[in-house]
């Protein structure tokens, strides 16, 4: 480790992995509720498990992004972090606020939580992914501002690289678009219109900048390829992201009462959104093939390549599958959507988080790479989790195709609940595969605790 203050990232990564575990456990609860409808009812109704599952995902990814920034920005900027104490303080504030919110979801009925946190004063709750009480949302903004100030000062007063500037742009964008979560008009069409400015412009916009810069950083480190080459790739990838992805928001404006021209605008531009993901795959494999060094951290290289492939599959291929308006007419809001959401989030954002953790954690623990045994375990966990996610996606896709056929396509469409019963078998398969994913995760965590004799310092 070049700079002492990079070490603040460690807590962020540990918290990320712990919250990730919580996310998966609640995912398994929901998976069971899909087939055993009254499981844990009424103690933990499905919607409560779901908000815990999705909010933990978002929060742990934010922890991982922040950890990544605290780790890589000092190294890129060639200086210590502007205010390490602020990073540590924000860590505890964010962790406690996050934990209190999740405990709130679990201990109180949602309407009581809304009353308790005075939602009526400034109503923002009860929209998908934005379930947090308004006070929590304000807390997120404060933490984000302190974080961006800290990172921004470090970047601006140090060596400015393309990687750190792109990362900073992505992080500022993340904070700015989150502000739309405070806009909640009575008009449902407008509510939905701007809700996507948080959700879509995050995952298919500014988060891709964060993803690209972390990937570029790790690739420079593990391949030793010239920075100039890597930076050129980074620019062109994120250029394509924004050129296609901004107007691509239109693929969410097909059926919510918005004007008809979004049908073709959304279709055409979002159909090109796989391009930057495909370029990311080319980029990662090219750089690894042209490597000038053999980095001892084989696991980190595997995660980096895995990210590039799985992001393309989940976001690019599974996104394209249902992004054209005539197809989306039938698939909108079905298990097809769920299938895509899972593989895209995992392939792009979960895997890039695990990539930087894999690269940085050994360094923060005083070695370039883990020993043989730990790395082999980590690579096993890579394959278990990744293959499990591929099968979860395939089962949900099968369920989705049948759902669309039964409920929306045949001459004699059946009610939602009837269709769900007929496709039960795929939900069972998904749940078993989810258990395999959990085994992969347990193995992953275990790989941090393997005792080794001779590790490269």
């Amino acid at each position: 480790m070049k700079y002492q203050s990079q070490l603040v990232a460690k807590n962020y990564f540990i918290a990320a992995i712990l919250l990730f575990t919580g996310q998966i456990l609640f995912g398994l609860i929901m998976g069971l509720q899909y087939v055993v409808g009254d499981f844990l009812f009424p103690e933990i109704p499905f919607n409560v498990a779901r908000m815990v599952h999705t909010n933990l995902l978002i929060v742990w990814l934010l922890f991982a992004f922040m950890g990544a920034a605290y780790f890589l920005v000092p190294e890129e900027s060639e200086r210590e972090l502007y205010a390490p104490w602020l990073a540590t303080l924000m860590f505890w504030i964010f962790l406690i606020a996050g934990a209190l919110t999740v405990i709130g979801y679990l201990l109180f009925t949602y309407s009581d939580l809304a009353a308790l946190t005075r939602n009526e004063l400034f109503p923002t709750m009860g929209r998908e992914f934005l379930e947090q009480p308004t006070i929590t949302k304000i807390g997120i903004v404060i933490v984000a501002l302190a974080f961006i100030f800290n990172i921004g000062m470090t970047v601006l007063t140090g060596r400015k690289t393309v990687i750190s500037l792109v990362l900073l742009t992505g992080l500022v964008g993340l904070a700015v678009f989150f502000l739309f979560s405070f806009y909640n008009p009575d008009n449902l069409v407008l509510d939905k219109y701007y809700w996507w400015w948080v959700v879509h412009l995050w995952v298919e916009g500014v988060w891709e900048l964060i993803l690209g810069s972390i990937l570029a950083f790790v690739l420079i480190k593990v391949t030793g390829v010239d920075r100039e080459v890597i930076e050129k790739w980074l620019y062109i990838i994120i250029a394509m992201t924004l050129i296609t992805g901004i107007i691509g928001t239109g693929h969410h404006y097909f059926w919510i009462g918005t004007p008809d021209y979004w049908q073709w605008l959304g279709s055409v531009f979002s159909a090109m959104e796989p391009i930057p993901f495909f370029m990311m795959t080319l980029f990662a494999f090219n750089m690894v093939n042209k490597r000038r060094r053999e980095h001892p951290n084989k696991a980190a290289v595997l995660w980096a390549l895995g990210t590039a492939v799985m992001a393309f599959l989940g976001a690019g291929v599974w996104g394209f599958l249902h992004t054209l308006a005539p197809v989306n007419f039938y698939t909108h809001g079905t298990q097809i959507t769920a299938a895509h959401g899972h593989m895209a989030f995992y392939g792009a954002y979960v895997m890039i988080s695990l990539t930087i953790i894999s690269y940085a954690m050994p360094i923060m623990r005083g070695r370039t790479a883990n020993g043989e045994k730990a790395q082999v375990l980590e690579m096993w966990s890579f394959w278990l989790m990744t293959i499990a996610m591929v099968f979860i996606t395939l089962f949900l896709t099968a369920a989705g195709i049948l759902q669309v056929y039964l409920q929306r396509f045949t001459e004699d469409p059946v009610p939602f609940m009837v269709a769900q019963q007929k496709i039960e078998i795929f939900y069972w398969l998904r749940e078993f595969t989810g258990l395999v994913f959990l085994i992969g995760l347990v193995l992953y965590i275990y790989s941090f605790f393997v005792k080794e004799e001779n590790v490269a310092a």
Partner: protein
Amino acid sequence: MRETFTKSMARNIYYGGAVFFFLLFLALTYDTHQVLPSGDNHEAINEVVALGKKVWEENDCIGCHTLLGEGAYFAPELGNVYTRFGESTDAIKLFIKSRPAKGVPGRRSMPQFNLTDEELEAIAQFLKYVDGIKTARDWPPNIQG
């Protein structure tokens, strides 16, 4: 990438593309605001419907249901439930009111929210308002949602 394609060209495409398409997006958003009033059923929004939206949000109905195709995929689409229930707000109210507190054994269950009469009326009116939003091609594809 070939040498003729330089880093500064890539950077210019990034800045130029980002700014151009973001401005275009803002322009389209402006236009959407101009066109919307003809189909967003805003004339149906009154105090009761606004209260209904709060009831919808403060009970997290979106955590199980989709509304115009967005939300969770655990329970039926509600954007057209008013039509599905024979254009009867009473039927909607009755359904919500009659959910057993302990759920339905073995079946996906909906909680008993213990809504007041005023809230029940409001949520039903809200769902009626949503059903009145003009969606392209009259989405959803059929009555089953």
